[in-house]
């Protein structure tokens, strides 16, 4: 198995706070890695380091052997990393079809393409690709609606469709079920399971234990910026250090 993402020796300090303390982790192809930890453990910081939003003080982040540090978001996406945000980031004023066609165009044409007089209507291949993904995510009936009118759960599904239409090599998810109802959470879990079956490599940051234990192949526990445990879901469940730092709160 090849290593898709390799984070080694990453440190990040915000003033007096050691947000990330010598973090090492590896994501193998086809694997779903979950990063969990209490609030303020550094989960989002770690994700932001991975996608170039933050530059670490030291250490390296490599994607298929290529460094991601110092790269622009669009370069990281063009390299094959797609990201799902904590609050769904979509194009609210455009319709669903356009929302999915745009990432497909970026995948085909690259970061900039000056095609000012070709007609979007005649991009049949892109359009049918987009429709396929909308159908797969159960959104095909709404494809003419403005994306801003969707429910939160549907927005999340649209965002996933937007990411997957690019056939990324790595999918990063930042709390994909945050703020969702139980019902929406369950449908999202089903969706993520389906994506997992297709062999997608994923990194998930999550609070919801149900989501983590039903999806992850490997779990990494962060506390105060350092990795305190890592292993399969069963190993993590029984690790006393983890129970103390994180799960313990829930069992009270």
């Amino acid at each position: 198995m090849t290593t898709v993402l390799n984070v080694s020796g990453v440190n990040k300090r915000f003033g007096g706070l050691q947000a990330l303390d010598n973090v090492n982790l590896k994501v193998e192809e086809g694997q779903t890695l979950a990063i969990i930890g209490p609030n303020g453990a550094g989960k989002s910081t770690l994700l932001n380091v991975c996608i170039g939003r933050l530059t670490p003080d030291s250490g390296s982040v490599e994607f298929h052997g290529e460094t991601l540090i110092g790269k622009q978001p669009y370069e990281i996406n063009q390299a094959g990393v797609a990201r799902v945000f904590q609050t769904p980031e979509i194009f609210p004023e455009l319709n669903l079809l356009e929302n999915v066609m745009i990432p497909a165009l970026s995948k085909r044409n690259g970061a900039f393409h000056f095609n000012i007089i070709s007609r979007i209507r005649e991009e049949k291949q892109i359009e049918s690709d987009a429709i396929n993904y909308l159908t797969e995510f159960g959104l095909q009936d709404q494809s003419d609606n403005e994306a801003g009118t969707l429910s939160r759960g549907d927005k999340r599904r649209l965002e996933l469709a937007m990411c997957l239409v690019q056939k990324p090599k790595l999918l990063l998810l930042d709390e994909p079920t945050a703020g969702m109802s139980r019902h929406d959470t369950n449908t999202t879990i089903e969706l993520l399971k389906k994506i997992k079956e297709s062999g997608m490599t994923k990194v998930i940051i999550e609070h919801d234990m149900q989501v983590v234990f039903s999806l992850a192949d490997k779990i990494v526990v962060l506390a105060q910026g350092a990795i305190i445990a890592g292993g399969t879901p069963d190993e993590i469940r029984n690790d006393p250090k983890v129970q103390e730092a994180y799960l313990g709160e829930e069992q009270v």
Partner: protein
Amino acid sequence: MDTISRKGELRMMALFAVIVLLMPIWLIPFGAAYPDLLQKFAIFGIFAVGFNILFGLTGYLSFGHAVFLGVGSYAAVWSFKLFTMNVIPAVIFGVLFSGIFAAVIGFVSLRRSGIYFSILTLAFAQMSYNLAYSVLTPITNGETGLQLRLHDLRMIDGLFIEAGEGLPLTNLFGIKMSGYPGFYFCAVLLILAFYLALRITNSPFGMALKAIKSNQLRMGYTGFNTRPYLMSAFMISGMYAGLAGALLAVTDPLAGAERMQWTASGEVVLMTILGGVGTLFGPLLGAGLIKYFENIFSSYNDALLQETFSFLPDMLNNLVVGIISPFVGDGWHLTLGGLFMVIIIFLPGGIVGGITMLWRRYIKKRGASAELEGETS
């Protein structure tokens, strides 16, 4: 934001061409069918359509677009002075130079977005305006404005044509560019400019611009480098303004610094918002309305009003004229301001946005009643 099919596009363009080319006829009842005003409709239509490519599609509000209008005019007049009175090179130079200016101003201003972008463009515009007035007098002829002179070089014309008496006139291979021929020249360019704007709006490039307006963060994480997209939109829209500026010089060959003043930049913003930001026809409608008000309302004076209401008894006549007179003549801005406020408050989508909303409601109503009929039968 629906895109239209190739057939729909053709129909729309045909209709548009007919409407524009027949303006000298159907504007007669409005008292607006004279060449000077018709030329202004076409020229400021181009200006507003181009402005809308930036503001309507990307949401970046430039408050200094009149710079490109001014640059276009100066470049065109210089072309008349140095090379030839033919308008084709003048138009090409106008577009070219405004494109260069747009590249420079855009490169700096597009480092910021939102209000900071607007302020930067405004600063550039005021800078250019003041430079044109002072330091750059050798090029712009300062306060007097750049004009044609008898002893201008006119290198190309000098080779072919014997210099006649008096100032030469702008022409298109011999056709004089004043009056109606001038209007038709501008109208044809307006139709072409509108067609290009239509194609841009319905292209993948245009969709990317709309997406930038909608969510720039997502655009980055979707793999788009937004800077060159914004840069291209800014330059295209600057070149539209340059074309409009050059045409102002074509129909009346002089260029003054006041063309770059912030009020001129503000005017195109008003036109676009009044007609409907982001719509294809809105900016044209806005440009037409504002130029109409400017020319028609401002020409009304008290005497003319007295005459219009002369059928009323004297006292009533004086009263009515007293009430109306502040809104016409020099006070036409008051009418424009009032109209602008009414539209912003009641029709945030501008005139075209309002019409679209009414149309949708009508369709919905008709759909609902058709459904009802279907159920009862």
